[in-house]
């Protein structure tokens, strides 16, 4: 009986699950976590290089969904866009807090590009690997300068002025490269945006 109940939840859309959450339906939150918890956790691990802190960030993100999911409006954007934005913001906040505290150091990004999942199911791994491969391929097609700007801002939490100082580029050039990089990704992955995200 429980299995049937869970299968019914699996068939609900993200928006339908959010409506259940607004009625304090914990099973709906569990279903959303099962869909996207690994993504959020992986992003936090990638940026923080610390699984313990990544757990805290992931917990905060899903508690935000639990408390504020009712404020989400689908016509303004996809749920995953909203979710990953919250996850990224929360993770960058944690990263910058660390820098201010100077209590921990973050290793170079490239050291963590090869993190591999240890216990992902074969089916999930196939889907994840497919998405990952497409997006990484799109990123690899970006000019190095644009790709570097995205890496430094999105994954290392540097501001545009900090990136300009680090790379020796004019601030205006950094701003332009950020915009171009995102626009190119958007264009290259338009099919993905229509289905996966």
């Amino acid at each position, binding site marked *: 009986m429980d299995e049937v109940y869970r299968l019914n939840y699996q068939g609900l859309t993200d928006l339908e699950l959010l409506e259940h959450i607004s009625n304090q339906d*914990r099973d709906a*939150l*569990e279903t959303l976590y099962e869909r996207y*918890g*690994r993504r959020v*956790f992986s*992003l936090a*691990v*990638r940026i923080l290089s610390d*699984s313990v802190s*990544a757990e805290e960030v*992931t*917990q905060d993100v899903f*508690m935000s969904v*639990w*408390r*504020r*999911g*009712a*404020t989400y*409006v689908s016509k*303004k*954007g996809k749920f995953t*866009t909203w979710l*990953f*934005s919250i*996850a*990224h*913001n929360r993770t*960058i*906040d944690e990263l910058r807090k660390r820098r201010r505290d100077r209590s921990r150091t973050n290793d170079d990004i490239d050291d963590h*590009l*090869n*993190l*591999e*999942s240890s216990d*992902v199911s074969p089916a*999930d791994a196939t889907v994840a690997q497919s*998405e*990952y491969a497409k997006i990484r391929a*799109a*990123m690899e097609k970006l*000019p190095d*300068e644009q790709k570097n700007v995205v890496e430094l*801002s999105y994954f290392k939490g540097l*501001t*545009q002025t900090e990136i300009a100082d680090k790379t020796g580029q004019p601030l205006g050039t950094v*701003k332009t*490269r*950020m*915009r*171009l990089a*995102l*626009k190119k990704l*958007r264009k290259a*992955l338009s099919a*993905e*945006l229509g289905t*996966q*995200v």
Partner: protein
Amino acid sequence: MTDSNEITENSGELDPRFENIAAYILDALDDEEERVAVEALIEADSAARAEFDELTEAAALLAIAVPTVTPPARLKARILELATSSPVPGPGPLAPMVSITEPSPATRWSRIFQSGYAVSAAAAVLVLVAVGALGIQNNRLGDEIDLLRSDLNVEAEAVASLRADLSATLLDSETRVASMKGDMDQMEDEVGATAAMVVHQEEMVSELAIANAALRVALRDQSWMTYVAMKEDYRVESWLDDNQAVSSASGIFAVRVIGNEAVFQVNGLERPKNGFAYTLWLLGNGDPIAVTQFEVSEIGSATVAFLLPAPFFQYSSLVVTQERIDSVGSQPSDVQFLSADAN
């Protein structure tokens, strides 16, 4: 094609008014003023809003551009447990998703006013723009406030629960400390009593030792007095020391001048073991002769009168041993408690 060519080629297509939208989405702006300006622009300009939506979707793809790592199972359990203890705020009017970044716009406005930025001329322009946006955002801010208020209520309940737990823990600790202090006081009393008993016993031992020494002196004096009393009729044939004794015994041996009577007086003997009695032997005139068995007093002394089997000068020595009562052998035991030569 180089990146600079790309920029040159594409820059013409980029509206310079929107130059900070990408950095806003990537959370790469340098300060709150820039954030507020971008939010006001998005609210006021549909083209800006369109660019924002477009780039936001692209940025979300970056979250997928990382290898997946499976979180530990305990994380899901913890989140669901927190959700159980943290009720969802009541349903209200759905707010438009304008700001997707943290902290909330309400917080940002607060920071700007607190920073004193509003008093500067440049800030005044920005504030006017932002105030225009405030009307649009009013409902959303209200919702945000409601949510924050709800969060605060949840946190307040958690703090109250924690405070109750701490109070209970503190009270329990105080009770346990008081109990331990009572136990320690009792132990201290018992130790004190034991120490007093030890001191008392030591004093008793000391007093007994003094009394024993006094008794020994008195006994020696009594021996002298016995000797003096008997000297008219007896002569002291030997003054006996414990030259080979296994105890601290000593004694006097006196012989009546006329006749064959003798008196033996001894001091410092321990109580004999059960079934045994001290036995006086005369040696040196044929076989050893056990002339008598005798008891000793509480302080280890005895005065024994007996008849000599032969004149005293015929004996060479005397010994005191412990022999079985009424079952004395022909030879004295090896252990001699007193032994002396007859001079």
